[in-house]
């Protein structure tokens, strides 16, 4: 009985379609990402393109650097220190302390006393990063606001690279920078170096060329203030306010751009638990955004959004189908039922996928080595990426999607999440 059911399922067209999708999707997306990222490198990262950034001081917009912080006494001092010496004509720094119980306010006040460009807003009630930024915006009177995480270190010339886009193109509503991992302490952080080059940076290069970007980096993103107000700023009910605001801007026809020259050092989770919590939040946030904006994005007028909607939705679907597929195979093995339609491991297609993944990792790291030569060392751990890290991220997606959609439906407000401290 069990054998006949197992054979019927494995010979059905649905099973074959799922298997084809699982096999083809990673290969096709990898090829599309690599080829488009190379196009970005050719049209936006050549030496000739430096002229784009030569904007006179008078033309550069005024900037407020917004630093939302909650219990960041370990990192805040270093982060603010980097802001004193920025190469930019006119900027302010506003630290928004979201009712921290540690020395965050005192550290911010030391910098306020030292530099007249620094400001501090202390909230008496903790309400999460989105509301900290929304309330901070009440004190912003510049043309551009740059949101920087409290545990990051902005590169000295980052503002010039970012603001050239705002100065030259009125359509630009947001520019996101290039985060670089600074705490390279163990295998997990090394894998994230590879990930930030080959998945995050490479994908943003590709999406920049597609015309729409799926997500901006919360650690460094700059907004034209009028555009940010136009989309009602940051949604406190979203797990990832950065993904949400990028979509809202693009669906109001603002350009969101990726600027690989705008570097920012950031701390990534160094424990499995910390990484798990961070990625559950990211994957859940993406699911919320897809649920909130996905159906509207299919209208003809939003056709430039179709690439990122399709890619994001299919990646979530792939994760769910892959785990279902593995669970079904495991069940058949336990029941000692036939598993003839399942491919043997490793087969040619599996090795092809591994090869495509390694090629993507290599291209991503090579593109980013222009800005961080040390990134090349992380390629040593690249063979582990498709084996371990990819599988972990697949499980994370499945774990996060449904609960995040339920939380959004119930209208639960998102709270601070600093997994690297966990």
């Amino acid at each position, binding site marked *: 009985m069990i054998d006949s059911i197992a054979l019927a399922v494995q010979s059905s067209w649905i099973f074959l379609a799922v298997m084809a999708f699982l096999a083809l999707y990673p*290969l*096709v997306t990898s*090829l*599309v990402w690599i*080829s*488009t990222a190379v*196009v970005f490198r050719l049209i936006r990262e050549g030496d000739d393109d430096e002229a784009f950034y030569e904007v006179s001081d008078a033309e550069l917009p005024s900037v407020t650097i917004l630093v939302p912080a909650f219990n960041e006494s370990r990192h805040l001092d270093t982060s603010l220190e980097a802001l004193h010496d920025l190469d930019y004509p006119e900027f302010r720094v506003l630290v928004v302390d979201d009712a921290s119980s540690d020395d965050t306010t005192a550290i911010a*006040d030391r910098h*306020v006393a030292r530099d*007249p460009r*620094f*400001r*501090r*807003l*202390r*909230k*008496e*009630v903790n*309400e999460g990063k*989105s*509301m900290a930024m*929304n*309330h901070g915006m*009440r*004190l912003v*009177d510049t043309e551009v606001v740059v949101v920087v995480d409290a545990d990051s270190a902005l590169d000295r010339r980052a503002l010039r690279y970012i603001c050239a886009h705002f100065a030259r*193109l*009125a359509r630009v509503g947001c520019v996101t920078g290039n985060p670089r991992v600074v705490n390279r302490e163990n*295998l997990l952080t*090394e894998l994230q170096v590879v990930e930030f080059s080959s998945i995050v940076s490479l994908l943003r290069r590709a999406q920049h*060329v*597609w*015309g729409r970007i799926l997500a901006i980096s919360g650690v460094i993103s700059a907004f034209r203030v*009028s*555009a940010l*107000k*136009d989309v*009602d*700023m940051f949604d*406190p009910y979203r797990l990832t306010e950065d993904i949400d605001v990028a979509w809202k801007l693009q669906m*109001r*026809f603002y350009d969101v751009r990726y600027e690989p020259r705008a570097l920012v050092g950031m701390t990534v989770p160094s424990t499995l638990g910390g990484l798990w919590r961070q990625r559950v939040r990211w994957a859940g946030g993406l699911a919320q955004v897809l649920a909130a904006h996905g159906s509207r994005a299919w209208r003809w007028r939003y056709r*430039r959004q179709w*690439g990122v909607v399709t890619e994001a939705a299919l990646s979530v679907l792939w994760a769910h189908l892959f785990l279902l597929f593995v669970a079904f195979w495991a069940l058949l093995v336990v029941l000692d039922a036939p598993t003839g339609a399942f491919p*043997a491991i*490793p*087969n*040619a297609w*599996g*090795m*092809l996928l*591994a090869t495509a993944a*390694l090629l993507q990792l290599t291209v991503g790291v090579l593109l980013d080595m222009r800005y961080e030569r040390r990134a090349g*060392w992380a390629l*040593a*751990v690249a*063979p*582990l990426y498709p*084996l371990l890290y990819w599988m972990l991220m697949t499980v994370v997606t499945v774990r996060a999607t449904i609960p995040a959609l339920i939380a959004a439906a119930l209208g639960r*407000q998102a709270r601070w999440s600093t997994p690297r401290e966990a």
Partner: protein
Amino acid sequence: MVRGTVARLLVFVLGVVLFVIGWWRAATSGDIDLWFIAWLALGVVATVLVTLVWIRWNRRIYRRKGPRRATADPGPLPARDQLGRPVIVVAGSLEAHATRLTLVDDVVEICPDGAQ
């Protein structure tokens, strides 16, 4: 430092060995023939070509529309925050170096430090 380098090297060697063994097993299992390679090559070329055409189409939309001539002027921020509460920004807050935000009776107030 030395331990880190050795660990990286070990992981790299292990990965390369697994990769080579994987391809060797796949190649000797009869999975790979001329048709497989031909279809694969065709698929790769077709995918890249379709991507490039799509990029061109996308860039032409951007060029046709041209740069946005003006940015929206949404005016001042609304009187209520994103949680629906009234927000009062006390005079002098914008210039003050240190400000605080309080929440009393569901009203958000931002005022300079030391102000009542």
